[in-house]
């Protein structure tokens, strides 16, 4: 098992070390993860809407996700795992960087939220035979070394009829300008080298990987940043920088 996870397709040791160094900053809304904090409400809305629609839940109920088993792969400090647990989901948060998991555990305990955090990889969970109604892989696929293998692993983590939601960055001139020049060089929201633009995946490429893994693409949606209001909005037309993809097993 251990040897499996160390040699697994999706974990790149250098990438993990990079994030561990930033772990303490996760919950600082003005820190290095500021872009994620800004984007988070919109991302959470989209995810909750997709899940409630797919599983026929009343989005206005207090705990619309109750009874659903949800895995957040690359959960980081728990920015998404905690809100999902608050909506009633039975959440497992996995991150290959143990430092992130330590930060996430501490924070969830302080908030009185029960989340099953594990310093492990998607591959290790799949090998253990874990199955989920929903798998989230947010801003993670651009950091894995073998995206096709990673998507196949996500597929094997889903129950039949389960939902996979991915978010990532497109590989366009605009995404280079926004994520590399804007966020890393100019605004210094992210340390230089956080992203490697060549690893970014276009929506069509990602849809191809998803279909190749035996999943059905249900939706693709862009997330568009407005630099004047510092706000994000969903767009069905502009997928040129950040985007989400929902697929069903």
């Amino acid at each position: 098992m251990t040897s499996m996870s160390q040699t697994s397709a999706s974990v790149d040791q250098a990438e993990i070390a990079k994030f561990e160094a930033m772990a303490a900053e996760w919950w600082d809304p003005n820190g290095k993860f500021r872009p994620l904090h800004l984007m988070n409400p919109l991302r959470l809305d989209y995810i909750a809407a997709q899940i409630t629609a797919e599983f026929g839940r009343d989005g206005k109920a207090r705990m619309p996700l109750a009874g659903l088993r949800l895995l957040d792969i690359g959960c980081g400090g728990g920015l998404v795992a905690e809100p999902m647990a608050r909506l009633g989901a039975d959440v497992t948060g996995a991150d290959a960087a143990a430092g992130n998991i330590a930060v996430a555990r501490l924070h969830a305990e302080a908030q009185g939220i029960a989340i099953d955090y594990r310093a492990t990889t998607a591959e290790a969970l799949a090998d253990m035979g874990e199955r989920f109604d929903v798998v989230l892989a947010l801003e993670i696929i651009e950091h894995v070394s073998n995206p096709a293998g990673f998507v196949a692993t996500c597929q094997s983590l889903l129950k039949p009829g389960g939902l996979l939601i991915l978010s990532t960055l497109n590989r366009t001139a605009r995404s280079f300008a926004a994520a590399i020049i804007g966020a890393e060089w100019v605004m210094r929201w992210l340390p230089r080298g956080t992203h490697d633009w060549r690893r970014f995946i276009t929506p069509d490429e990602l849809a191809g990987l998803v279909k190749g893994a035996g999943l059905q693409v249900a939706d693709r949606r862009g997330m568009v940043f407005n630099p004047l209001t510092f706000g994000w909005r969903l767009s069905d037309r502009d997928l040129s920088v950040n985007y989400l993809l929902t697929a069903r097993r």
Partner: protein
Amino acid sequence: MPAPAIEDVDILVSGGGIAGLIAAAAFGAEGFSTLCIDPAPPVTDESDEGADLRTTAILAPSVVLLQRIGLWDRLAPHATPLQVMRIVDAGGAEPRARLTRDFDAAEIGDQPFGWNLPNWLLRREIVARLESLQSVRFHAGIGTVSVLTRDEGAIVTLSDGRRLRARLLIGADGRDSPVRQALGIGARRLRYGQKALAFAVTHEFPHNNVSTEVHRSGGPFTLVPLPDREGRPCSAVVWMENGRETARLRALPPEGFEAELNARSAGVLGHLRQATRLTEWPIISQIADRFTAPRTALIAEAAHVVPPIGAQGLNMSLADLALLVELNRSDPGNAAALARYERARRPEALARLLGIDVLNRASQAGLRPLRDLRAAALGGLYGIAPVRRLMMRAGLGLH
């Protein structure tokens, strides 16, 4: 935890008004599995409380669509042709016709402008047609609770708990469209402070298939030809006035109302007698910020609302529908078709809305000099034959 099953349909029409019912018939006639829902059952009898006593002029281009979907043969026997549209200015010191101009359909072709039908009867005939289409179901008493549009289809939860996934969701659910609101699409609204009274009258002189608009102040007063009623010539009235004035008129005793009615009509068809109860409608102009979302198209008043001038409202809606059917015949709800629908229909609707807005404001004019200017403009434009023919063709939606 297994999710409750989702039922797949090709087309889901939210809204069972005239436009929604015709949309269901149009897509059903193409063989698509179609479900039409509306929170309220359609009122199909004139005497029922809540019957829609307005009438609709089906203009010539709309007839083509109705023929195609097998509706026109049912409607034609009840329709009254509109051969002449007469505009009367009664904006002088006395409420008398001082300028009359006839727009005759014979000047631009061999067909009438259109055919006039009462709305309650339109509903009755379309519902009957739906019953003969195997592919269409019409469920009254059911509304939409939530909508999520995905690339693969619009997922709609209904008030009876059912969940549907539609390749194309058509929002035909009116000016306060629940579909439009669920998608977070805004709308710009212009208010005029006006209301319209709609009812039928019998009159002394035959209408000779002439529709007459009388302009004085407060808005147009329109008489639209209907079939004879109890042996007397009959017309539908749409009387637009500011809201305070319609409230006053509605509160009048029958003889008082009849006196006001006859003063306002300027005697163009002789003495008028009220033949049905009064119904009242608020007048606004409104246009949705977008006409489409993924897997979703807005049509009719969900997309655009105009004051009842020049028979534009439903005919704009049927033009929406004709294009929507044409673009979605091979693969309903595909993104390219919806993008073309948006590009074609929204600018067209906005242009018509702005034109009608100007006409309505001109007709509202209360001040004498403005009313004189209006009469001069009408007389002047009318006098130029090519302009006159252009106005008639534009009104029909011909190019």
